[in-house]
Every structure is written in structure tokens, then in C-alpha cells.
């Protein structure tokens, strides 16, 4: 990809994921546990991972989205949790993609799961007690479920993009 084209594509992806993030904030959802959410913006992270030649570019899209999203609504505490969750999730997804054994759906569900692992790790470090991992039996399956749904969506989009 030429550099101008790539720049525009990256900006487009970042913009789309921001819109999804803000849209998600408008959807009322039942409160299950602290940190449980849909994570619609992760659709874009997946698409970025599968359409961009280098994972570093997808990481840039993710990082920009998290920083900008925390400016739109959140603050430093939210930024910390989003970053820890996002980076953990991204690392897991890149590694699983590199292994070449998994479909976007499996990778996405692992990403959703690891997002919660990252957040819980950060929060546990913040309060200095592993007690928060009591939420994992709720958050883990939640992350897997949303991951499967998002992975399914991303697969559909990728099929259309390739045609």
C-alpha cells in the first residue's frame, strides 16, 4: 500500500472505530459487572488486523482510538483500564493470528476474554489485591460471548471486502 493511501485508510479505520465507540455508549445495557461491555470498536481492530499488512499499523489504529475515546468521555482512570485491556487483547489476537490456526471468530473471542484479563490485572494492581478476579467467572464468559458476536460481524465484513 502506498503511504498516502495507507494514511487515509488508517484514519478511516480510526474514525470508524471512534464512531462505534460513541454509538455503543448510547446503547443501554444491563449492568453485569464492572468492565462488561460490548466492545463494538473491536470490530475495527479485527478488520485492521486482517486488512493491513503489518500488525504495527493495526496497533496504531487501536492506540489512537483508545486515546481519542478517553478524550471524548472517560478520563485518566478509564484510559488506564482501556489501555491495559486493549493492549492485552491486541497482543493475544496478534499472536493467535500469527499461529495461523484460528479463524477471526476464535481470535476475536480470545481478544474479548483477554481484554478483561488486562483490565482486571490493572485494577488488581491499583488496589493491591487479587480479590477483583472474583469477577472473572462473569466477565470471562461475557468477553467470549461478545467476542464471538463481534468476530462473526467482522467475518461478514471481511467477506464483502474481499469480493
Amino acid at each position, binding site marked *: 500500500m502506498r503511504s498516502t493511501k495507507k494514511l487515509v485508510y488508517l484514519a478511516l479505520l480510526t474514525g470508524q472505530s471512534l464512531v462505534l465507540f460513541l454509538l455503543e455508549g448510547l446503547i443501554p445495557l444491563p449492568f453485569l459487572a*464492572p*468492565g462488561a*461491555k460490548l466492545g463494538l470498536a473491536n470490530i475495527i481492530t479485527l478488520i485492521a488486523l486482517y486488512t493491513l499488512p503489518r500488525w504495527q499499523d493495526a496497533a496504531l489504529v487501536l492506540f489512537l482510538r483508545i486515546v481519542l475515546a478517553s478524550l471524548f468521555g*472517560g478520563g485518566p*482512570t*478509564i484510559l488506564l*483500564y*482501556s489501555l491495559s485491556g486493549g493492549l492485552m487483547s491486541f497482543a493475544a489476537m496478534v499472536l*493467535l493470528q500469527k499461529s495461523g*490456526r*484460528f*479463524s477471526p*471468530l*476464535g481470535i476475536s*473471542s*480470545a481478544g474479548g*476474554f483477554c481484554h478483561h484479563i488486562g*483490565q482486571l490485572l490493572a*485494577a488488581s494492581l*491499583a*488496589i493491591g*489485591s*487479587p*480479590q*477483583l*478476579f*472474583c*469477577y*472473572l*467467572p462473569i*466477565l*470471562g*464468559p461475557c468477553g*467470549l460471548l461478545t467476542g*464471538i458476536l463481534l468476530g*462473526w460481524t467482522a*467475518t461478514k465484513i*471481511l*467477506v464483502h471486502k*474481499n469480493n
Partner: protein
Amino acid sequence: MKKMLNRADILLILLLLFISFAPLLFLTSQTPDRLYADITVDGKLIRRVALSGHTGRDTFVQTTAGGHSNTIVVEEDTIAVTDADCPDKLCVMQGPAKKPGDIIACLPHKLLIEVKGSQTDSGLIPMR
């Protein structure tokens, strides 16, 4: 594009689902490690009673303002007021307290029993 969900995906999801429940083996419950009850009269801390690990039944009489008294019973890990010489006996009717945040109040005697935990309440941490 390959199949939507292959065998490796299913194994991965099942493994992660299994890991989700692993903390249940290591972390017993969400209630704080140590529970205690603070007994205050007229805003002053009179006595601190450890509730966690408490077994059996202990009874003591707490004298309060104006020569009145409340009978306080600590049974297992709960605390209750079983008798008082106040007119309304609301403190007796409130029953036993055992969770952090539970309180028993006897307003005529300015007596307050608060159950507290020694750990931070995790519900206070904002996460999204």
C-alpha cells in the same frame, strides 16, 4: 475464506471458558477477609468486635448515655442487640447484622453498631 468456526477455535473458546472459572478455586468469596463491628456511643468509638472467625455466642451489656443499657450478642459472625431498656426496642427488631455496611442503631441511647470490612469495596472502582 475458511470455515467460520474450526476445531481450534472451539478448543480455544472452551479453554478460556474453563480459565474464567479458575478464580473460584483460589479466591473464596467477595466478602472482605476480616469483618469487624464498631460500637459507638454518642459518636465515640467504645469497642471494636472482630466478627470474622468468631465462634460461639458472647453476650455483653453496653451501658450508654443516661445510665441506660443495651444487651449486645455476638453469635458466630453476626452481631445483634437482643435487649434494651429503651421504650421502642427498634434496635432489637433490626435483627442481626453481618455484612459490611450493615448498621444497628439505637437512637434514644445514641448507640450505633456498624459492620465494616478491612478491604476496599471493589464496587467503588470505575471501569468501562
